[in-house]
């Protein structure tokens, strides 16, 4: 079995562990922790799709992961801007 193939699977397992850790972290007290955890989950899921698309040669997985990274970023920044309020 190819070493590259194995290392991709190891990264996927690590990403799943990180998603579970981020889900736990998003349940902490402040709203900012929820925001942080959800952004981590989105990025980890996008990475899993990216690696899955690389393993099984599925091109649209990469498009979906690109969209997830972009819109996850936009959603996180927008929610943080609403949470922070005005500078006054």
């Amino acid at each position, binding site marked *: 079995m190819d070493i590259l193939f*194995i290392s991709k699977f*190891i990264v996927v397992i690590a990403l799943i562990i990180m998603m579970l850790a981020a889900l736990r972290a998003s349940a902490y007290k402040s709203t900012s922790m929820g925001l*942080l955890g959800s952004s981590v989950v989105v*990025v980890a899921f996008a990475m899993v799709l990216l690696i899955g698309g690389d393993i099984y040669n599925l091109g649209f997985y990469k498009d979906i992961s690109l969209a997830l990274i972009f819109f996850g970023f936009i959603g996180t920044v927008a929610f943080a801007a609403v949470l922070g309020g005005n500078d006054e």
Partner: protein
Amino acid sequence: MIEYVQSALLLISAFLIIVAAVGLLSLSKNTKNAVYARIHIVGVFDVACIIAMIGIGQYLLAGIYFILAPFTAHAIANAYWKKEDRENNLDLVTVEEDVDYNHPFIHPKDKMQVLESENSEKLKADDRFSVTTLEIDEGE
């Protein structure tokens, strides 16, 4: 040869991701500035993701995420600082009240405290009309 470099990058990123996950969970709740520390740990996860993207050959996506990730971390930290960080932010601890000094029935707290203090001018003026039980002589 390139395969070995790619797998080394992926294994490094997997190690960093697991270290970040353990750090995110093991950080004590009572730690000072725990939210900022967690945002810092997520920065490690972001770098690990960038290394993994380079490892699977997605260089453009890695560059884009390298630019976007600090904005996310800063936005979350900024929002926390403005609205939720009572530990470091004195503005959030003291609550400002709108005080109307001309309201006929609701009097502000500081005004009442001045009136009730021992050195109050109004209280001294009212001493003329005060009668204590000690001064009453029942024999008269």
